[in-house]
C-alpha cells in the first residue's frame, strides 16, 4: 500500500515523567515514520520506553516535546475530543492483560468501540458478531471472560480492536500472557489483517514474535538504537 505521506511521523519526540523531583526520560529525541500498511515490531528491554512510545502513538499520552503527526494531523494541536474520536475510528488497541470488561459477554466487549461511535444497537450487534466470527469466536458471543480461555480472551480483545475497522493496530505484548501455540494463532490473526492493509505496530520483548515483522525498531533507554527493515525474512504461516 502506498501513500504520499506516512501514517505516522514522529520528529524529535521526548517524553519525560516527573516522579517527585527526579525526571525520568522515557523517550529521548525519537524520530521515525511508519507508512500505511507497515508491519513493525518495537523491541527493547523493560524500561526502554517502548510502552511509552506505544501510548504516544495511540494518542493516550502526550509528548513532552517534539511533534507527532498521524493521518497528516498534528497530534499536539488536537483537542481531547478529537484525539478520542481519532482513537475510536482509526486505532485499535490490544493489551497484554486483554483488559476485557469483567462481567460483559464477548459480544458486548466487541460492541464497546461502536457504542462510543454512536452506532445503532442493531448495527453494533451485527458488526460485533461479524468481528467475533472473524477471530473464530462466533459460538462464544454470549460467553463472559471467566468462561473463556486466555487465548479466547485475547481473540475477543482483537475482535474489539478491529470491530471499527481502524487503519492502525497497536498491540502491547499481545502474546505475553498466553502460551506459545495460542500466541502464534493470535499473531496469525494480526498478519491476516495486515495482508488486508492494516498497519501493525507490535511491542514485544519476544524475539521470535518480533522476527515475524517486516521491520524491527529497537529501543534502549528511550532512544532508537536500531531500525531495520526485514523485507526478506517476512514469514507468514
Amino acid at each position, binding site marked *: 500500500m502506498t501513500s504520499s505521506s506516512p501514517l505516522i511521523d514522529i520528529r524529535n519526540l521526548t517524553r519525560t515523567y516527573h516522579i517527585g523531583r527526579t525526571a525520568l526520560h522515557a523517550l529521548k529525541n525519537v524520530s521515525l515514520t511508519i507508512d500505511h500498511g507497515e508491519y513493525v515490531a518495537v523491541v527493547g528491554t523493560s524500561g526502554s520506553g517502548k510502552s511509552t512510545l506505544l501510548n504516544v502513538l*495511540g494518542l493516550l499520552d502526550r509528548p513532552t516535546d517534539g511533534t507527532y503527526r498521524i493521518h497528516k494531523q498534528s497530534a499536539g494541536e488536537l483537542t*481531547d475530543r478529537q484525539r478520542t*474520536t481519532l482513537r475510536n475510528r482509526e486505532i485499535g*488497541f490490544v*493489551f497484554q492483560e486483554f*483488559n476485557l470488561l*469483567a462481567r460483559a459477554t464477548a459480544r458486548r466487549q466487541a460492541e464497546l468501540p461502536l457504542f*462510543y461511535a454512536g452506532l445503532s444497537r442493531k448495527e453494533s450487534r451485527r458488526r460485533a458478531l461479524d468481528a467475533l466470527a472473524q477471530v473464530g469466536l462466533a459460538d462464544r458471543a454470549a460467553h463472559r471472560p471467566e468462561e473463556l480461555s486466555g487465548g479466547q480472551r485475547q481473540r475477543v480483545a482483537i475482535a474489539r480492536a478491529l470491530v471499527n475497522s481502524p487503519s492502525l493496530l497497536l498491540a502491547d505484548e499481545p502474546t505475553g500472557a498466553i502460551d506459545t501455540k495460542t500466541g502464534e494463532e493470535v499473531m496469525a490473526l494480526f498478519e491476516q489483517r495486515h495482508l488486508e492493509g492494516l498497519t501493525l505496530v507490535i511491542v514485544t520483548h519476544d524475539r521470535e514474535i518480533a522476527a515475524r515483522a517486516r521491520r524491527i525498531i529497537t529501543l534502549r533507554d528511550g532512544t532508537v538504537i536500531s531500525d531495520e527493515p526485514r523485507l526478506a525474512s517476512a514469514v507468514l504461516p
Partner: protein
Amino acid sequence: MKLLKYFPLAAENIAARKLRSILTMLGIIIGVASVLTTLGIGRGASADIMQQIASEGITILNVESGGYSDQTWTSGQPLTMADVTALSDRSLHPDIDQAVPLYRQYIHLGTGNSSMFMEVVGTTPAYAAIHNLELAQGRFLTEQEIAQRTKSVVIGADVAQRQFAGADAVGKSLRIANQPFTVVGVLRKRGWDRFGNMDIRAVIPLAVAQDRLRSTSPAHRHRGEYTVSEIQVNAVSIERLDAAARQVEQTLRLRRALAADEPNDFSIESQAWLLETANSVAATLTAFLAGIGAISLLVGGIGIMNIMLVSVTERTREIGLRKAVGAHNRDILLQFLVEALMLTLVGGLIGIAISYGLATIVERFSSPDFPLAVLIEPGSLAAAVSVSAACGLLFGLYPAIRATRLDPIDALRHE
C-alpha cells in the same frame, strides 16, 4: 435521545452487582418509605380532623354581647330580636345564610324523682338546620310551637337515657325550672362538638325560654325588644365566612351607633381559626417530617456517593479501557451519573411500593375510636421520586467527575 443509551448500560452494571446495589439503595428506600408513610399518616389524620371540623358547623359565627379589644373587656348592650331580624335581611347580608337567636340558661331539669343541672337552649327550628341535628325519636320543634309558645322540649340522647332509661321518651313529661314540658323529640347521640355536648342539652321554643327561664341577667327586654343571649349566624360557605363576619360587624356597629374610634362592644367568634390551626399544625407536621426525610435522604445520598466512589476506584481499569477505545469524558460522566440516578430512582420506586405496603398494614390497625387513614398524595409521590432523582444526580456528580479525570494510561496500568 443520546442519553437513553446509558440506561441499559447502567442497568447492566447495577444488575451485575446486585447485593451492593441493593445495599446502596437501602438508604434511599428507607428514607422514601418512611417519609411517605409518616407523611401519609399525618395527612390522613389531618384530613380526618378537617372533615370533622367541617361537619361540626364550621360556617357558624357566634355573636355575643361584650367584646375584648386590646385585652380590655367592653361590656355592651344586650343582643335583641331586632338584631336577629336585621341580620336576617339577605339583601344587606348576602353571605349570611340565616341568623338564629339563642337564649340559653343552666337550669334544673328532670322527672319527679331525678334531676339534672344542665344547659337548656331556647331557639327556633333553624337551629336544627344549621347544626345538622338528627332525631332518634319524634321530631324537632315546629314554627307553630315557637309561635304558640308551646311548652315542648327536644332532649339530647344522654338526657333521654338518664331520665327515661331508654324507654320511648316522646310524649312524656319533663320539668324544666319547675314547669312541665312535653318531650316531642330525642336527638341522635353525637357527642361533643365546639358548641358543647349536644347529648346533654334540651331545646325549647325561644319565647318560652325568654319567658320562663329568666334569672338575673341578661335583662328580659332591651328597648322594648326581647333579648337573646347569643345569635348564631350561619354563613353561606366556609369561603364566605370572613365576609359574613364583616357584614355582621358592620350591621351591629351601625345598630349600636358605635363611633369609628370605639371598639366593638360585641364579639363575633368564628371557628375558622380552628381550620387554620389544624392546617398550620398539619403544615408544621409536614415540614417536620419532610425535614426528617431530607436528613435520611441526605444520609442515603452520602451512602450512594460513597459506593460510587468505591465503584469508580474499583473500575479504574474499565474506565481507562473505555477511554482508550473511544469514550469521551462526557460518556464516562453520563455513565456514572445515569448509574447513580438509576440507583436512586429504583430505590425511590421501591420505597414508594413499601410505603403502600406499610399503609395497608397501618390501616389494618384502624378502629372507630382510633381512626388511622394513610393518605399518600400524588404530590408526595412526585416529590419522593424527584427528590431521589435529585439525590442521585447530586451525589453521583462528584464520583462521576472523578471518573472522567482518570488518565487512560494510569487507568490501564491500575491493578
